[in-house]
C-alpha cells in the first residue's frame, strides 16, 4: 500500500471536522436491535449528565469518538442527557477514561459499563440474535475494538509529528506551563508503555495503516450488501436529521462509513440507511 503523505492523515482527520466514530460505536450498531421498554423500567432523572473534556481545544480523537458513541447510544434509547465539558473530566472519572455519566447518585464510565447500567435500569434492548450470531458479533466487536481503537491511540501518541503538532498542544491546553508539558508527557509515556506491552511499539505508521485497512476490509466483507450488520429490520425510531455534536444524521439518502486512507483508496462498508456515519 503506498502512502502518499503520512503527515496529512492525522491533520485531515482533525481539520475536516470529522468525528471519527471509533470501534466502540460499531459495537453500538451491532448491539442495538430494537427499542423496547420493559415494564420494570426505572425512571431516568432529568439532570443526567455526560462529562467529557473541553470540546473545542482539549479533547482528542479517541476520546471524542467514545463520547459520541455513548451519546448516540443514549439518544437511541431515548434517554436525555446533557453534555458537560470539564478540563479535568479524565481525572474525575472513576476508571480514568472518558466519557462518564452522572445519573442520580451513580457515576458510570466507558461505553461497556454504561450499556450494562442502562440495561440494568430497565431501558433495555431486546435481543433477536441466536447464539451463533451472538458469538460472531462478539468476535467482530473484539476485532474492531482491538484494531481501530489501538490504531487511533497509536496515531495520537506514537506518531511523532501528530504528537508534536496536535496531541501535546491539545492535551495540555487547559493547564499553565510547565504543567501542560508534564501532563502530556506523562500520558504519552503511559500509552507508549501500553503499546510496548501489546507489541505495537515496533510498528511503523505504514504497518498500522495496513492493519486498519485489513480490519475495514473484514468488516466490509461481513456487511456485504446488507443494510445492517446483524439484523435485517428497518429502524423506525429515529426521525430525520437529528443533530448531535454538529454531525448530521440523515436517514434518507446514502451514507457511508469510511476511513480515509492516505492513498486515494476509500474503504467503506456499504451504502446503507444507517444510523450513524462519518462524513468527511
Amino acid at each position, binding site marked *: 500500500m503506498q502512502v502518499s503523505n503520512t503527515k496529512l492523515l492525522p491533520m485531515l482527520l482533525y481539520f475536516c471536522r470529522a468525528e471519527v466514530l471509533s470501534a466502540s460505536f460499531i459495537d453500538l450498531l451491532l448491539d442495538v436491535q430494537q427499542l423496547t421498554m420493559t415494564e420494570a423500567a426505572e425512571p431516568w432523572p432529568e439532570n443526567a449528565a455526560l462529562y467529557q473534556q473541553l470540546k473545542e481545544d482539549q479533547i482528542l480523537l479517541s476520546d471524542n469518538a467514545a463520547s459520541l458513541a455513548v451519546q448516540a447510544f443514549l439518544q437511541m434509547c431515548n434517554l436525555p442527557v446533557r453534555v458537560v465539558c470539564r*478540563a479535568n473530566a479524565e481525572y474525575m472519572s472513576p476508571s480514568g477514561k472518558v466519557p462518564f455519566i452522572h445519573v442520580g447518585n451513580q457515576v458510570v464510565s466507558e461505553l461497556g459499563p454504561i450499556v450494562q447500567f442502562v440495561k440494568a435500569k430497565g431501558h433495555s434492548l431486546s435481543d433477536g440474535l441466536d447464539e451463533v450470531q451472538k458469538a460472531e458479533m462478539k468476535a467482530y466487536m473484539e476485532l474492531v475494538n482491538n484494531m481501530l481503537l489501538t490504531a487511533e491511540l497509536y496515531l495520537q501518541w506514537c506518531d511523532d509529528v501528530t504528537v508534536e503538532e496536535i496531541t501535546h498542544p491539545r492535551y495540555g491546553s487547559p493547564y499553565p506551563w510547565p*504543567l501542560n508539558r508534564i*501532563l502530556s508527557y506523562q500520558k504519552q509515556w503511559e500509552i507508549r508503555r501500553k503499546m510496548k506491552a501489546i507489541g505495537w511499539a515496533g510498528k511503523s505508521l505504514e504497518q498500522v495503516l495496513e492493519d486498519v485497512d485489513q480490519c475495514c476490509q473484514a468488516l466490509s466483507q461481513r456487511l456485504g450488501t446488507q443494510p445492517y450488520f446483524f439484523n435485517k429490520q428497518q429502524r423506525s425510531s429515529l426521525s430525520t436529521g437529528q443533530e448531535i455534536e454538529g454531525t448530521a444524521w440523515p436517514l434518507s439518502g446514502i451514507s457511508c462509513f469510511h476511513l480515509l486512507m492516505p492513498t486515494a483508496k476509500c474503504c467503506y462498508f456499504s451504502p446503507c440507511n444507517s444510523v450513524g456515519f462519518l462524513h468527511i
Partner: protein
Amino acid sequence: SSILFFLYLGDDALPNGLDVTFEVTELRRLTGSYNTMVGNNEGSMVLGLKFPNLFGRAEKVTFQFSYGTKETSYGLSFFKPQPGNFERNFSVNLYKVTGQFPWSSLRETDRGISTEFNFPIWKTNHTLKWEGVWRELGCLARTASFSVREESGHSLKSSLSHAMVIDSRNSSILPKRGALLKINQELAGYTVRFSKKEKKKNNNFFSPKVFSASLWGGMLVPIGDKPSSIADRFYLGGPTSVRGFSMYSIGPQSDGDYLGGEAYWAGGLHLYTPLPFRPGRGGFGDLFRTHFFLNAGNLCNLNYGDGPKAHLQKLAEYIRWSYGAGIVLRLGNIARLELNYCFPMGVQSGDRICDGVQFGAGIRFL
C-alpha cells in the same frame, strides 16, 4: 565539650580581661537515620540523611525519603543562616508529600519547591516564602461525593506568603505565662488565587492554675471568577480545634464529605490545674495537667458581594460550641496528648459529633 575561662595576662590585657576558650566536638560530617513506622493500616520505611555543616558556615542539607505500602514521599532541604546572625536565614526545599483526608474522601499529592527567608525585626519574627506546587487531587473511595469528584485533577499553585510571629510564652506546650500572636498572609496566582489571614493569640497567667485564652480566624478570598479549591479551604472541628466534634467535621458538606469553608473563627478558654492529689509530684506527674475547656467556632462560605456587616452576621449565626474536662500530657516540648470528656452544643445538621470521650494528639491545639 566545655568552656574554659582564663585570666589573660598578656601585654595588651585589659584590667578585667578574660581569655575564653570554647572546647567543642564537631558534629559528624554526615549523619543518617533509618526508621520504620507502622500505623493506620500502613507501614513505611523512612530514610534520613543530614549534612549539618556542609560548607563550614552552618549550612545544613537534609534529605528524607519515606517509602510506604500506600504512599511514597521525599524532601530535600537546604538551610543557610547568615554568619553571625543565626536568626536570619533562608532555606530552599524540594518535596513530594501525599496526604489522605478521610473526612473529605480526598487524596492529595503535592510536588513542590519553596524558598523561605526568615528574619527578626525587633521582637517579632518574620517569614517570607515563595512556593510553587503541582497539586494532584483525587477521590479516596468510589463512594466519594460528586462535589469532591469535581475537584479531582491537577493544578499548579504559585504563592507568596508572609508570616509574623510574636511569642513571649515560656514554653510552647503548657506555658505558664506569655502570649503568642501569629499572622499569616498568602497570595497565590496561576490556577488558584486567594489571600488568607490567620491569627492566633494565647494569653496565660500565673501558676499552678493557668488560665489560657486563644482565638483563631481565617479568610480565603478568591481573585477572579475561579472558585477556591478544596485543598486551600479551612477546616474546623476535632480534638485539636473545637473539641466534641469529629475531625474537621464542621461546616459545608456533601453526602458526608466535608468540603471546608472560606472563612472561619474559633476560640477557646482553658483552665489548667495540676492533677488532683498530685501523684508523682516532682517527676512524671508534672507532665500531666487536668484542664477544663470551653471551645466555640464557626466555619462557612461567605458571599463576597455583601458588605462586612453581612459577613460578621453570617459568622455569628450557627455557632458551634462545646465544653468539658480532661487530662493533658505533655510530650517533650513539641506535642501533647489529651483525653477529654466533651459536651458538644450548637450542632448543625451535617456536623459529625464525638460526644463523650475524645482522644487527641498533636502539636497545635485551640
